[in-house]
């Protein structure tokens, strides 16, 4: 007995440092790849590259970005994209999750098949949609390019220009290319959002729904007054994760539209790429990255507040 007790005491001393050694490698990797680059980006955003090296320019980079028309246009495209993408994905995801939550026969089978688009890379998903809507030869181009169905000139991804905006320069209504981009992005994000909402719906005790149904409440009323309020936190988490993914995703823009036609799908993430790698304005690109990062951090902070991390870290 005493021997065993001694052994435990000895172990507890090594145990004391064990968690430190277990966690240290993770912390080091995250400091190198996540924390340091974030700080570096903030520093770069106040610098300008000259032949002699980096020179500090204060907030000039921010001013220069904010004063370009293309930045304002990119903000508009991003807003249009995000609104379309979020509304389509959230409403369809909620609808499908509600169906699957009804103890449907084969619901596991449906969920598995539904998840296949999620496993495709965003770049590849963009190509898949491009094959459908490519002008002249895309399988759907016969329907989409029909001027009788879609006046005045059909919906061509490459040539149809943007309809004239309704309010000022805000790019609404969106161009055909933007509509395809929204559809492709929503298609790929739908499975994940459906799963998220389904997991949340399954936490609602079925007695609650049953008893209100017995009381004569319609499906719509149950959804509006019971289901949606109960899963509201998850809906907001889904909303934030969609905005995060949609604002920062760029692979699909590369393969589906390349930002075009013209600048019709020139969203902020693509703007960052062109600033940095085609126009080689690294300081300005860093300033834009910092602005996007601040929005990201706000969304992440909001998500963490809703999911109440402090309770889960216990």
């Amino acid at each position, binding site marked *: 007995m005493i021997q*065993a007790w001694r052994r435990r005491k000895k172990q507890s001393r090594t145990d004391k440092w064990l*968690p430190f050694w*277990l*966690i240290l*490698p*993770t912390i080091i*990797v*995250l400091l*190198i*790849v*996540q*924390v*340091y680059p*974030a700080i*570096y*980006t903030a520093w*770069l955003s106040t610098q300008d590259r000259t032949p002699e090296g980096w020179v500090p320019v204060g907030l000039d980079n921010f001013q220069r970005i904010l004063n370009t028309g293309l930045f304002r246009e990119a903000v508009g495209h991003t807003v249009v994209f995000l609104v379309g993408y979020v509304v389509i994905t959230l409403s369809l995801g909620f609808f499908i999750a509600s169906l699957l939550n009804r103890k*449907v*026969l*084969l619901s596991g089978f449906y969920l*598995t*098949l539904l*998840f296949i*688009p999620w496993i*495709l*890379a965003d*770049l590849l998903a963009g*190509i898949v949609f491009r*094959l459908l809507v*490519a002008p*002249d*030869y*895309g*399988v759907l*181009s*016969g329907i989409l390019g029909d001027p009788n169905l879609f006046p005045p000139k059909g919906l061509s991804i490459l040539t149809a220009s943007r309809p004239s905006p309704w309010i000022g320069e805000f790019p609404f209504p969106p161009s055909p290319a933007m509509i395809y981009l929204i559809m492709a992005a929503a*298609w790929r994000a739908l499975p994940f959002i459906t*799963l*998220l909402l389904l*997991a*949340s719906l399954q936490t609602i005790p079925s007695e609650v729904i049953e008893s209100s*149904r017995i009381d*004569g409440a319609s499906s719509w009323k149950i959804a509006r007054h019971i289901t949606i309020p109960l899963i509201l936190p998850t809906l907001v988490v889904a909303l934030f994760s969609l905005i*995060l*993914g949609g604002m920062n995703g760029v692979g699909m823009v*590369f*393969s589906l539209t390349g930002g075009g036609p013209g600048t019709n799908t020139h969203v902020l993430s693509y703007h*960052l790429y062109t600033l940095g*790698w085609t126009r080689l304005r690294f300081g300005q690109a860093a300033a834009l*990255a910092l602005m*996007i*990062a601040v929005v990201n*951090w706000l*969304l*992440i*902070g909001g998500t*963490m507040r809703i*999911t109440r*991390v402090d309770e889960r*870290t216990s």
Partner: protein
Amino acid sequence: MAKLRSPSRKTWGSLLVNGIMIVILVVVLAPIVLTVIISFKDQQDTIRKPPVLFPCDTETDGFDLDACRWAVEGYERVLAPKPSEGLLGFKLTGKLFRLYVPNTLLYATATAFGVTLLAGMSGFGFSRYRFPGRGLLLAAILAITGVPLLTNILALYQMGVVLRKSPFPFNDRVFLIVVYLGFFLPLSVWIAKGFFDTIPRDLEEAALIDGASALGALRHVTMPAAMPGLAAIFLLTFVNVWNEFLAGYLLVSKNELKPVMFGLYDFLSANIINLQVIAAACVLIALPMVVVFLVARKSFLSAMVEGAVKG
């Protein structure tokens, strides 16, 4: 009233739900099915105006199953098999499969191993021990989970530029793997912690009382129980790296070291009018991941729920 609803109405309701689900599935899977169909067309059938869905029409008939002109030309042009003396009797000379797929296999395997190891260690540490700063560290890791690659890619690119000029030995492949490690690790730490939380502590304590060391208990008792969770992390990371485009495209300087998504992007611009070739490349690159997902769907979905609902 509603209480006395006849069972037949319930059956009708269930039929309706299933019917709607099938319609949704058809719409959701249509782009994939169409891509597979396109990949088996021959060149003449992909450049017809107006486009036809199936290459099965004859002069007299709109659709005749016997007249279908299926072709594997697209696949041949992607893989470009040439006879050779190896084990298989041929080798693939298409750049996509000669160069980019092996690159990605290396990156994905190395990253998945690294992420699984590190996430397993720190997930266990966070799950089993209470120490000062633990809550703060966990919250910080969760916050980093949400940070997308896009905003850091610029600084990482600059770090690469500086390191290449420095006297330190610098390797593009190692650099890319470390970047992937840092981006796919945070979510996996949370998933691993979640899995370890579900393994009862009694098992380890029994082993400790029997005289095993803490590390011994970890290796012989906890790890076997955690294997399914760690396997899920491995697969999820593997798929994530396989599908990643931006970092592989921008952080690696030489084209021949870039991963498969860059290869596909490059391929797209080179074959822009040969839809059947592009479709075949997409099918060949997506198929392994779809198969992995279908085989291991349970572990994927559990990892997703673990990571998504909690983190």
